[in-house]
């Protein structure tokens, strides 16, 4: 089989397919929904097919020269395939959930189109080995998420969507300046060539800083974090998709792609990035404890957990990077589950204020248990998957002797336990304040599925561990 076609298929089946969805929606809404799911599922299945190849250490490079250095260069290595597998799997579950969730609302054609296009752009971004190509896909995700956040067309909601768009685009424009500066220095936007060029010289700190602004703004890290909780006005599957599983991981991924795989920045950044991420993690965890809006809490929790991923990546040894990659997987699964549970709760009780809820475990047992399972995974409690990723990140950091920074994250991990339990208790235990039914079977099925996946990822840690380990070796150039 031609592997190049697989890579192209992963990107362009959802991208082109997305554009057909509004047409399909005119024929039948059911057809449109199923097509949307199939497009995303095909990305996932094709990604799976790439695994055997990349595990042997081979990579796929597709290059189509173009004027002005804007080459169409795609690279599929372990890291990229890991990322596409994770994001397409989670997106597929989220789309399944959407069947139940958005069925009551207007603009469904646009919704499915944007979700699918978003996933396609994400796939493109992951495989991009050219900075400008990466930037283009990056902005497509920004535009689609802008439409998706403003899905409910209220004035206030649209403003929040604008905010998310403005902050992330502000960041990405600054990042673009960084990219162009790299071009000035190395004469290329292609990452393999840039890698060669920076072997001889150190990349200037200014450029690293510029690119980092883009990365931090996309991954909602301090001081660019506030758009993320505000974006909680979006429909729940959207928040799950954007905040938990996919969008916020873009920044993390690009950090790994540029600053671990290709360019080694100054040693200084090994301290600055963990520190920024650590402060961000603490601030967000604290805010999550005070906040009373369910989706905002989970969004803050995302900011906090993203801090852990940055921490692992920026420590830069093989254990920590391995932990961070597993963290991307475990957090994605569990956090998507939490957001989707929040969606069920919000839709059935008509409120997002956790202080007004209570006792729902008796009427929504499946959602409750799924929520708890996902929360336990985020906390890092065995046998759930989050345990291993948290342990590995800590372990890697200690191997580098970063004791003091580790303590910041330890406090953060304490607070994670506390705020998630606060949410769980207020919603599911105690006195019933608002009566509510369990969600529709497809919605409950999706959240239970994510909870089971979180559990399976812990018990069957062997498989993700092995994959992530090979990816780490390849990232660090230790794999032949």
């Amino acid at each position, binding site marked *: 089989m031609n592997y190049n076609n697989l890579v192209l298929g992963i990107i362009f089946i959802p991208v082109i397919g997305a554009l057909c969805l509004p047409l399909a929606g005119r024929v039948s809404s059911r057809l449109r929904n199923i097509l949307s799911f199939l497009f995303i599922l095909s990305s996932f299945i094709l990604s799976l097919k790439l695994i055997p190849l990349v595990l042997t250490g081979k990579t796929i490079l597709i290059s189509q020269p173009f004027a002005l250095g804007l080459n169409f260069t795609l690279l599929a290595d372990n890291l990229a395939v890991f990322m596409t597998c994770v994001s397409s799997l989670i997106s597929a579950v989220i789309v399944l959930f959407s069947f139940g969730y958005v069925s009551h609302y207007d603009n469904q054609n646009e919704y499915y189109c944007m979700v699918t296009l978003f996933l396609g752009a994400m796939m493109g971004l992951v495989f991009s080995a050219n900075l400008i190509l990466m930037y283009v896909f990056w902005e497509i995700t920004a535009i689609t998420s802008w439409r998706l956040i403003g899905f409910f067309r209220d004035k206030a909601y649209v403003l929040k969507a604008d905010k998310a768009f403005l902050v992330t685009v502000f960041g990405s424009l600054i990042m673009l300046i960084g990219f162009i500066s790299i071009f000035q220095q190395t004469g290329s936007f292609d990452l393999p060539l840039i890698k060669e060029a920076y072997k001889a010289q150190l990349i200037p700190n200014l450029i690293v800083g510029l690119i980092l602004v883009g990365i931090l703004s996309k991954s909602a890290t301090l001081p660019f974090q*506030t758009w993320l909780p505000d974006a909680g006005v979006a429909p729940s599957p959207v928040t799950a998709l954007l905040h938990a599983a996919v969008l916020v991981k873009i920044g993390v991924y690009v950090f790994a792609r540029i600053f671990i795989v290709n360019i080694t920045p100054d040693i200084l950044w090994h301290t600055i990035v963990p520190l920024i991420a650590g402060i961000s993690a603490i601030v967000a965890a604290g805010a999550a404890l*005070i906040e009373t809006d369910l989706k905002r809490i989970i969004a803050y929790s995302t900011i906090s957990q993203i801090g852990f991923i940055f921490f692992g990546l920026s420590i830069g040894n093989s254990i920590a990077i391995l932990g961070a990659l597993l963290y991307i997987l475990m957090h994605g699964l569990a956090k998507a589950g939490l957001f989707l549970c929040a969606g069920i709760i919000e839709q059935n009780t008509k409120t997002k204020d956790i202080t007004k809820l209570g006792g729902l475990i008796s009427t929504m047992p499946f959602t409750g248990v799924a929520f708890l399972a996902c929360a336990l995974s985020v906390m890092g409690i*065995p046998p759930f998957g989050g345990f291993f990723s948290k*342990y590995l990140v800590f372990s890697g950091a200690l191997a580098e002797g970063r004791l003091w920074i580790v303590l910041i994250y330890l406090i953060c991990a304490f607070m994670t336990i506390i705020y998630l339990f606060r949410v769980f208790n207020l919603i599911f235990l105690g006195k019933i304040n608002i009566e509510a039914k369990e969600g529709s079977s497809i919605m409950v099925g999706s959240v239970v599925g994510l909870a089971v996946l979180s559990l399976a990822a812990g018990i069957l840690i062997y498989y993700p561990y092995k994959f992530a380990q090979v990816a780490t070796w390849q990232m660090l150039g230790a794999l032949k």
Partner: protein
Amino acid sequence: MIPNPLLLTIIIPLLSGILIFCVPKKLEGARSGLLVLANLAGLILAIILFKQSFTYTLPGIAPGLELSFRLYQFSAFMLLATSLFGVLIALYSVVFMQGKKLVSQFYAYFLFSIALTNGAFLADNLLVLLFFWEGLLVLLFGMIAIGNKDAFKTATKAFIIVGVTDLCMMLGIALTGHLAGTLVISKISLTLSPLANLAFILLMIGAISKAGAMPFHSWIPDAAIDSPLPFMSLIPAALEKLLGIYFLARISLDLFRLTVNSGLSTLLMIVGGATIILAVMMALIQKDYKRLLSYHAISQAGYMILGIGTAVPIGIIGGLFHMINHALYKSCLFLTSGAVEKQAGTTNLEKLGGLARKMPITFICFVVTACAISGVWPFNGFFSKELVYDGALERGWIFYFVAVAGSFFTAASFLKLGHAAFIGKISSENGKVKEAHISMLIPMIAIALICTFFGVFNQWPLNNLIQPILGAERLEGHNFSGFPTNTMLVIITFVVLILAILNHLYGLKKKGSGLHALDHIRYFPVVSNIYDLAEKGFFDPYNWGLGLVNVISRISFGVDKGINWVYDSLSPKLAYGFSSGIRKLHTGNYSVYLAWAIVGMLVIFGLLLR
């Protein structure tokens, strides 16, 4: 294919637990039978495995992280103890839980707990150990939460406290792995250094929190009220003590070799001593059977930690012997409280009284185990306490003093408890109380007998179970079985016990009731103020911790809102301000525009001609 017997000890309870979920609600007999049989199977397995030693490694759980188990003297003993408690408490629960809600959940969690505990004892890899150890957390939450209506609050408290300490332990394990270069427990032997000290302290936090020592204790008294009683008897009284002290012993004997002069040894003794005295002082003033017992469960953990912390052979042997003794008598004491609760409908001491005549067997079991916990000869508690005293005295008279003072208060509070519940007038509500069901009595009698046996024939457990753990080399030729050699200490112990009785008689004479026999201590000047504060939760470290977290959160929230203000208010204001300023310049007046153009041109020329 039959899995390795070590795996069986984990798989049997795990599968039986899952099976219990599948049994329909109507077949209560089947569920109960499954619970007892699964535990019985575990006990048989543990007996077969006892005295054997081998390792077993399951290949390929994760590359570089193998699932390795090791059966040897210590873990085989622990396995045996766990399964013994499993069988007895299962037998008890079957009757106790009759007619209660969520029984199958309780049974399943019961079995899962046994499975994970066995896994933690057998694990020969720190990460595997942590996996089982932390997994218990979820079950802890589940088992407490199915208690009464507000139990989930206590469950959350327990989860947060133990979860936080487990995270410390996770960090400790990562650090140990880094220092030792391996996670295989039997290969680690670290010498103390500043970083190793930190690792030890982090691991120690995990261990003593499991054992329920201060300052990680405060969920236990709450759980005593809220959770189903067999839980108290199984988890905080037995399994968690075994786990916590087992791990503490492993880290201070094997992973790190704790030496007599190290600061860590002193630290452990301070923690142990403080736990003994502070918890027993709280036990004195309790007015509820179960809550009183739970404070003793905390206090007794102090003796074990003190014993191991002394780092001298006699103290360590004493601490380990006390671990198994405590697990025995404390779980039996909890079982008697359950019998009283089931038969009399309450454990509130003000409503109880005179039950000795109605429930004679329960009363005898209570007396035996209460004597054991108070350190009365010839029961098991006497012998282990004497060993701990001896070790403590070797390290400093203050530790010895605290330990003996602890004994005084222990005896005093058990005199009060026994008097209030079993002797005295029968309250009108308790008129029709009958002796408990036979299936609840058997476990109590069995444990009471073992307590006596371990006392009278203490040579057997010490020579066969406890002393081999330390090994001949480290015992330096000593044998600590038999009657204590230090006669002076024995005399002091007897004097202290007699003083406790005199104190009780004094209080009785003053107040005229067993329940209030300790009121002269409770309302002693100054002490009474401290007690008042303690009863309000002022000294609860959990509340302090939450308070601190709350402060951090408020600051964080402020920072977050501050940053948000920059985006939501400041930047739009700046943008509007800037554009409205610019707009004012556009007056529509041609001459002004012309002037701008000229100035602009001049600037450009100026730059070009420079």
